[in-house]
């Protein structure tokens, strides 16, 4: 990938507001692909109609209707562009970037939406009457909207978009077809839409980070298998003998998330006309399966996938090769092997057998080695580029992300130690830990990657405003710090109050006492979240203005699949 930050300065570059057709999506498909897309969209619409009819007594009916409208909208878009001229055969001499653009836009839209919901639920804990007496606005329903929106809406779209970009560049191969990528991206967003609208209506499995019901889960399996096949087919077309390290992580992300998703979501629906289902796993086994899933959703969705991003965009932006190939191997296989044992640390001191808890704790502590190998590898890559970190907020996003990755993984191993967990579990400390990872690591690496990716994707000289990138950086960093400091304080105070005894050997505080003590921290946390949200809005605006008004790069030769600078050794 070329990062054209120092191309000739042209003040009179054309304003590229109209050079892209609105139906670029369909125009880049071949005639055959348009027909298949039409058939698939029609089938989706028919499935929606069937569910709407079968579930007319149930919330499933509403979802059937949403699927129907979604399918019909796709049919409409395809028909609208059906007779556009077909793409020329020359397309094979360039990468297929259109779905990546859509993925970036979708990710930013989900970010703003879901972070707004996050601020709202944070405010609900301090001011519980912000529900306006609406069923859908109570904490229990909005909270999964926030978690699903940021993890799957924002994170998932960002991963899909960047993985499409990285897999093509590092393989020096175009995707084998145009349709698969669109199916994955659009289908995935349908899943997110079903999940989020479902929670508002009370449709949920209650499994944390896997709340979506059976029909949405089945749909996600179809989408995900397509994603996997697309990835494998593109990698198989590579002109590089070796598979680059970023792709290892993206492949682990895709493969393992599929396994986790399928096993955790095996369930029996009440009927084909009901949204509700019952998981096959009972009690203690369900707890183990759930947290095996839950923790590895963190590992393979929020860590492996984003490490894939880091291993590509960080070296590109820093213009330095990855520090150590051996460290990459060590950390990759360490993460892939160790993480899958760690889930039981969510169940310390519970009715889960002691031996499983001990295994979970042991592997969680060992995980620190591959985690810090990755974080160290990233930071050492910056050796020789620290002046760029100072000057370039985009690179600083990624540097701080690597630091937070190191901090959050250390904290994770620490919290997994049983006696530490006895204090931290069930408290806000866990919430703070998750956000150190989610805000500090996942979101910052994504923003850094996007600021690297967006100008090259839309062939702009640079971002619309470097100042706004800087503003976003400081909002994001300040928001993250306020948030996690508030949660450390509240979590530790909470944990200590619950276990404090008086001299008479009775519990010193009632539960409500601990709740009252949380109030100032809940306000601080909502404020920290608000800062982070403002940063994301600034980022979304900056990206939007970049693709509307930033000057185009000077025309270059063909945009690969030619030899390009592949970071790494």
């Amino acid at each position, binding site marked *: 990938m070329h990062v054209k930050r120092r191309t000739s300065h042209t003040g009179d570059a054309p304003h590229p507001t109209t050079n892209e057709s609105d139906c670029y999506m369909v125009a880049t498909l071949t005639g055959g692909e348009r027909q298949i897309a039409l058939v698939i969209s029609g089938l989706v619409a028919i499935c929606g109609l069937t569910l709407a009819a079968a579930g007319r007594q149930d919330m499933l009916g509403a979802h059937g209707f949403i699927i129907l409208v979604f399918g019909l909208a796709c049919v409409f878009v395809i028909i609208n562009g059906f007779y556009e001229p077909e793409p020329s055969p020359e397309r094979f001499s360039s990468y297929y970037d259109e779905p990546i653009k859509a993925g970036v836009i979708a990710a930013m839209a989900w970010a703003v939406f879901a972070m707004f919901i996050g601020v709202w639920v944070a405010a*609900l*804990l301090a001011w*519980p009457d912000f*529900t306006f*007496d609406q069923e859908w606005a109570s*904490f*229990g329903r909005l*909270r*999964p909207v926030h978690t699903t929106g940021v993890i799957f809406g924002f994170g998932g779209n960002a991963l899909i978009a960047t993985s499409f970009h990285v897999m093509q560049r590092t393989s020096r191969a175009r995707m084998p077809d145009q349709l698969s990528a669109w199916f994955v991206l659009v289908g995935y967003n349908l899943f997110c839409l079903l999940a989020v609208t479902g929670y508002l209506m009370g449709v*949920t499995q*209650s499994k944390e980070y896997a709340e979506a019901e059976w029909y949405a889960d089945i749909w996600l399996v179809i989408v995900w298998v397509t994603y996997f096949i697309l990835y*494998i087919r593109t990698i*198989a077309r590579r002109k590089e*003998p070796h*598979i680059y390290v970023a792709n*290892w992580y993206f492949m*682990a992300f895709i*493969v*393992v998330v599929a*396994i986790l998703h399928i096993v955790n979501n095996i369930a*029996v629906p*009440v*009927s084909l006309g*009901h949204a*509700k289902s*019952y998981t096959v*796993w*009972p*009690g203690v086994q*369900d*707890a*183990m*399966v*759930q947290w*095996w899933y839950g923790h590895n959703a963190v590992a393979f969705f929020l860590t492996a996938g984003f490490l894939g991003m880091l291993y590509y965009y960080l070296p590109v932006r820093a213009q330095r090769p990855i520090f150590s*190939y*051996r460290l990459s191997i060590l950390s990759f296989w360490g993460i892939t*092997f160790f993480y*899958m*044992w760690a*889930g039981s640390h*969510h169940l*310390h001191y*519970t*009715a*889960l*057998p002691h031996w499983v808890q001990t*295994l979970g704790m042991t*592997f969680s502590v060992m995980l620190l080695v591959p985690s810090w190998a990755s974080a160290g590898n990233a930071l050492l890559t910056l050796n020789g580029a620290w002046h760029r970190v100072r000057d370039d907020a985009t690179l600083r996003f990624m540097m701080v992300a690597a630091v937070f990755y190191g901090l959050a993984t250390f904290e994770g191993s620490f919290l997994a130690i049983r006696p530490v967990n*006895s204090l931290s*579990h*069930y*408290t806000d400390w*866990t*919430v703070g830990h998750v956000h150190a990872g989610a805000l500090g690591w996942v979101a910052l690496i994504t923003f850094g990657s996007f600021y690297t990716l967006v100008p090259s994707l839309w062939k702009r000289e640079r971002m619309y405003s470097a100042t706004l990138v800087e503003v976003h950086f400081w909002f994001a960093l300040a928001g993250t710090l306020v948030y996690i400091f508030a949660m450390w304080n509240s979590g530790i105070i909470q944990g200590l109050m*619950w276990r404090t*005894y008086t001299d008479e050997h009775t*519990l010193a505080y009632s*539960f*409500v006492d601990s709740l009252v003590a949380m109030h100032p921290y809940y306000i601080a946390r909502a404020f920290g979240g608000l800062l982070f949200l403002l940063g994301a809005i600034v980022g979304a605006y900056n990206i939007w203005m970049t693709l509307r008004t930033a000057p185009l790069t000077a025309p270059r030769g063909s945009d690969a699949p030619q030899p390009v600078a592949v970071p790494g050794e």
Partner: protein
Amino acid sequence: MPEFFHRKLERSTIGFVLAIIAAASVGGIVEIAPLFTIDETVEEAPDMRFYTPLELAGRNIYIREGCYACHSQMIRTLQDEVERYGPYSLAVESRYDHPMLWGSKRTGPDLARVGGKYSDFWHVAHLTNPRDVVPESNMPAYRWLARNSLRTEDLPLHLEAQRAVGVPYTDEMIENAARDAYGQASPDSDSASGVTERYGEETQVRAFDGVATRVTEMDALIAYLQVLGRLTDAAFLDTAAPQKPPEPIE
């Protein structure tokens, strides 16, 4: 040498994917599969009951409203928790729970043994507006629960799905599910006696929301909350320091 091996592995897409699957499978297999085969994982509790249709419906409302996001149902084996909430939770107590609702966060207190701790009337007031009974509370108000009638006609399907995943509901229970849900919340009706016949004498049959003429979502949720921790006495007897199990509520 290991590096040489890896350089070869990196050249094969399929080989790499298989290696990922192999490496990632071990942990889950070692930790999950034995939970189904080692007998000590779930204790014996011959007196263990399972949810009546009304309690199951209440549990589904608990899930629908996301109560598990702030309330755990898992008392850990720590002294302060046992003193605050009661005997630590046993695996057998959630043996018929699909899914389990152990929770991961206590913005509010643990509910594993909340059954019988407060009166029905307290629960109605608390769910209608928590701040009326606990001024410092930050729990949302759930006013619509008393307004909404409970959907009971599809309860046989729910019980059938529960049976498919392993809860031993009988044909008779499935057949009478809707009637039993009505009966459990309508103590003076003809349907009330069938509930205790089918689900045991311990089953609580009351107008949980205080209104006997109508079965609401409030009835179902309170019936569920009042049975939490009371499906078996095992936790009171099977521990190092046995306690007297709670008296049945009248």
